[in-house]
């Protein structure tokens, strides 16, 4: 913690360290062996027993900055005092003139005749100024962090604690010693939002890496562990992003519009509606960018029809047989899917035209990390019941698309199959419902983005499907879907779905322009 001693205050050990890794407080950049030694904070055992409550952003802090170090060089003190003369919001403290014998000298500091409690006073300022003392490493840094005060560090050539892994730009204002007189102007230029995020970062660093000798030791070992196994090292984000992190970075984060050439794979889940299935296959085979049809045969009682009976199409057609009749089989990442884009389509959806499908694929290419579908649905919060409600009426908003026909990246099949939280997947398989809601949830949860609805389609309905039985079945089905949303939101611990007010149409959709010049003409019936 405290290497060296008077008068030189060597910044590493006074003894030869040989090949030993030195975990030391107060390294200078010349004694620190890059990527070998570890700079640790100077932990302050003297205030360890003092409890400093968490102060929220809204807490009124009397001072912009406080300097509460006692042993600093008199030149620094003069400079600090002259800054404080100019600005009332900067408080500079020193030892008290008359020391009361009963009080430990460290716990009381003074500004002239005014006495202040240390370290409590640190909580009354937004920033804490920490200059080098005789040593480079200062307990004042740890104390400021403990108090949730943003450190302003002026200690040239000091290697900040754990700076191998921690990004101090996020948590502190680091300046050259020469810039001491610029502190007021620099600090006032920092926005409230910037202050809030730095404060959050200070808290996070303190709690995870600095708060106790145990935390410091564990962090040190973790740093060494990362060096020994660099390919499995803790990432920058894991070290530096405060948890829980409200942010989401899409796993498909590269801004990329995949080429048209690879096309998409249509995956059709089917049980026994062979006629309808064949019709769907014939219909979708007209889509230029279709590269393969994969039929998922979900019926274990019956074998799929012999090869000769299948429709002859000019695209490859494969059939996979499943071991169990599960709804989640539709989202399984089959090896047979060799394209990025997957079109999940029901075996009874024949109303989509090749233009609509091709356009859907084009839109997916522009948004490869989203679900791109046709009919949209919405989730709404019911204030009275305190529950979520599923809305299938004609609304101005949407937050889900039906997966009866939807494009998505194959990666999401993998997520659905392997990373679905809680028991959602089993629940869906048992209840034979809500698989599409589950898919919308997982995609939005991983990307933070809403799905894209293309074209005006509102429903996938078959003309024969009327009659009262179906309607009542429909109603209980709908009630269950509302329950799904509430259940899933509980499991996620938040509502990942995002609501938007737009859909995607071809550029010239419904424009008064010769139809034959439009690329996607056959779009638009409801």
């Amino acid at each position, binding site marked *: 913690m405290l290497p060296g001693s008077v*008068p030189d205050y060597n910044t590493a050990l006074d003894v030869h360290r040989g090949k030993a890794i030195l975990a030391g407080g107060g390294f200078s*950049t010349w004694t620190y062996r*890059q*990527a070998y030694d570890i700079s640790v904070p100077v932990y302050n055992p*003297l205030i360890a027993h003092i409890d400093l409550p968490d102060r929220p952003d809204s807490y009124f802090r009397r001072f912009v900055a406080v300097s509460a170090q*006692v*042993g600093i*060089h008199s*030149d620094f003190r003069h400079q600090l005092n002259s800054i404080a003369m100019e600005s009332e919001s900067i408080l500079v403290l020193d030892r008290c003139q008359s020391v009361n014998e009963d009080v430990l000298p*460290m716990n009381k500091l003074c500004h002239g005749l005014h006495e202040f409690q240390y370290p409590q006073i640190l909580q009354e300022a937004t920033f804490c100024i920490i200059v080098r003392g*005789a040593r480079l490493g200062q*307990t004042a840094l740890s104390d400021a962090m403990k108090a949730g005060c943003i450190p302003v560090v002026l200690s*040239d*050539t000091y290697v900040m604690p754990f700076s191998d892994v921690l990004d101090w*730009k*996020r948590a502190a*204002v*680091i300046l*050259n010693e*020469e810039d001491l007189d610029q502190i007021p102007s*620099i600090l006032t230029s920092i926005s409230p*939002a*910037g202050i809030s995020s730095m404060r959050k970062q200070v808290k996070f660093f303190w709690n995870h890496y600095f708060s106790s000798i145990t935390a410091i030791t564990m962090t040190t070992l973790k740093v060494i562990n990362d060096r020994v196994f*660099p*390919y499995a*090292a803790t*990432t*920058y984000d894991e070290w530096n992003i405060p948890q829980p992190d*409200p*942010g*989401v970075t899409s796993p498909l*984060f*590269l*801004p*990329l519009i*995949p080429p048209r050439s*690879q096309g998409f794979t249509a995956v059709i889940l089917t049980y026994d509606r062979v006629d309808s299935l064949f019709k769907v296959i014939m219909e979708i085979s007209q889509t230029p960018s279709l590269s393969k049809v994969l039929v998922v045969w979900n019926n274990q009682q019956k074998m799929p029809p012999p090869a000769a009976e299948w429709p002859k199409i000019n695209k490859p057609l494969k059939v996979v047989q499943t071991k169990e009749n599960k709804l989640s089989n539709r989202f399984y990442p089959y090896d047979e899917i*060799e394209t*990025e884009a997957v079109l999940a389509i029901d075996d009874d959806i024949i109303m989509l035209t090749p233009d609509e499908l091709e356009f859907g694929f*084009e*839109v997916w290419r*522009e948004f490869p990390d989203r679900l791109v579908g046709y009919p949209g649905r919405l989730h709404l919060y019911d204030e009275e019941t305190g529950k979520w409600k599923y809305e299938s009426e*004609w*609304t*101005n*908003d949407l937050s889900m698309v039906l997966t009866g026909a939807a494009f998505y990246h*194959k*990666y999401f099949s993998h997520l659905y199959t392997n990373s679905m939280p809680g028991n959602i997947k089993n629940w869906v398989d048992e209840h034979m419902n809500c698989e599409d809601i589950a898919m919308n949830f997982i995609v939005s949860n991983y990307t933070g*983005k809403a799905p894209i609805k293309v074209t005006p389609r509102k429903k996938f309905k078959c003309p024969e499907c009327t009659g009262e039985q179906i309607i009542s079945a429909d109603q209980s089905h709908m009630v269950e879907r509302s329950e799904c949303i509430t259940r899933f939101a509980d499991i996620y611990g938040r509502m990942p779905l995002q609501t*938007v007010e*737009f*859909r*995607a*149409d*071809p*550029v010239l959709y*419904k424009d*008064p322009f010769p139809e034959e010049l*439009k*690329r996607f003409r056959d779009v638009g019936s409801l």
Partner: protein
Amino acid sequence: MQAKKRYILVTFSGVLLVLFYFGGLRILRNGNGHNVDQLSSLRSYLDHDDVHYDQDLHISPRQRRVARTNLYKNHKCRMETCFDFSLCKGDFKVYVYPTQEGEKVSEAYQKILASIRESRFYTSDPSKACVFVPSIDTLDRDHLSPDYVKNVPTKIKSLPLWNNGQNHVIFNLYSGTWPDYTELDLSFDQGQAILAKASLSFHNFRPKFDISIPLFPKDHPKKGGNRGDLQTNNFPIGRKYLLVFKGKRYLSGIGSETRNALFHIHNGQDIILLTTCKHGKSWEKYKDARCEQDNADFDKYDFHILLHNSTFCLVPRGRRLGSFRFLESLQAACIPVLLSNGWELPFSEVIDWNKASILGDERLLLQIPSIVRTIGNEEIMSLRQQTQFLWDTYFSSVDKIVMTTLEIIQDRVHKHLARDGFVWNRSPGALVMVPQYSENLASFPFYTSAIGVKPSQSFTAVVLATTPLVTQSVTFTKLLKSVAKSAHAAKILVLWNVDRPVPLKSKWPTLEVPLAVVDTETKMISSRFYPYDQIETDAVLSLDEDALLTTDEVDFAFSVWQSFADRIVGYPSRSHFWDEAKSKWGYTSKWTNDYSIVLTGAAFYHRYYNTLFSEYLPAKLRHRVDELGNCEDILMNFLVSHVIKLPPIKVTQRKIYKETMLQSTNPVRKTSEWLEPQHFNDRQTCMNEFANYFGYMPLVRSQMRLDPVLYKDMVSNLRKRYKQIELVDARPRTS
């Protein structure tokens, strides 16, 4: 031998056991209480007196600094001791010495110098400069090389502002020569200058002072540069090979034991590691037993086929620590597996290489296959995307490498504005982040979802007024009223780009939102994108004075913009195309099935783009726009697509955009400039000039338009939130 060892071990363990039985028990018996006592009686490293009476009695901080500066020079340089921060009080500026007549400058170094001279950091006035770059070519210091420049020591010393290299940056790719390739042998004394050098090792690297740059080939493009090769993000990746390498094995002079040992893990199946002994004229003199076989295997495979069909690419040291394989694999989205112990990776001060590469240890070569096999598909997908992000952002051209170097220095100079690792390692990267704009990530358009914030809920309409009597125009008043009616409008800012005094307050309509008029300084068209302090919202709605918009259209577009805060969201669109016949870029305003430009006469965009337009783009481009009085919107579209690599977004509109297109007889309006052929021709010229400046065509096409969910649906209009959008008949435009 083995048996003997084992015997000794067993005996030794036995002795230990016996000792423990007799001694250990005793410790356990009286152990506990005693130990605690001992712990609490240990003196802490710190007590109250230490803190209270500890005093810095050194001469003075200033004297300490002076002493340090005298002590830590040359190879011990740090920014605090060798760099004069007092030269950098204002903006960060870089001076390039004029190139002496007859001076031999390699093509690569010419590109470096030109990049600096064309950048926004450049100053021709050395008294304003913070950093200095010599025009003497120091890239290749291998005196056997044809690019080696003679008499550098004298030339450097005679630089008028050299001052032992203080605040200078020396670029270098090669140092040392056969047989040892000594890393620090530049054959001149760089003194206090910052080395921006390839293949630097930790040992010689002066931390936070030198900058490790990548080794790049002579023909590395100056600007633009090719995109990374990753076009699809297939999951799982499904490449044929797991790990490949193809390169030279050096038999004489310093080489690499690692390359010599690669054959141990080559398996001829999914791990293909090939070396050749053929190097120089006299390789046969030194050849070893493996050479014949190695050379034969080497010729069986094509490097580019391997590169593009492998998940991982080995990047072992060659004669020097860095090798060309590094950038090649980065571009090819072949995850680099680095085997070059002690190499300070390029720009590692800011780039987190763990996110884009695998760091191997040369001493543990045999573990490499099992290490790469444990890396899961999800991580592979993420690593590969990161290689592409890094390549496109910091490496694909000489210009980017040079700018990254300068930006790193800028971050050290303006410490409190330095961009953090989050910004450097995430799209769109630090080169397009003007640090002076804000220290708060939420005020940039790129991170809303990454940090979990929403862009602001209101917008500022910025209307460009170019005709003196505009306040008398009905259209103009109507436009202001429609905009002001939007619940999201915070303010209307009229930019008075007219050479007459601003009309009196009484001439302006009374509106629901505050109206401010800025009498622009230059009266030039580029002033429409100036980052005015009066714009306090994230969203800007940029408008021409004669735009026709209803409140519904404004509201809908704003709602779309909130989902795409990093894009331009607007109404009328245009396209670019490649004109084969003329072999240049063309611009069209015809109705097309796709678009790549959204006109900024009516569009939402993030106010940060004003800062980029006015501060990031070089003044030369803005002058060009002003000179033509045209193309500012094209330039803005270029800029935004360059930054985010995605197209703008077109939202639905009634099909009449400008009043002039209604063939109005409004006396206020001059003949529509939009109908003049010259105006159109200028725009063609702009497309090509801008593409030339960026070094590539940044515009990206989109085939979709965003409409309200119920747009033109057969449902009662009462149910629709945005009714007005459908109320007016659509009519085609003329040009």
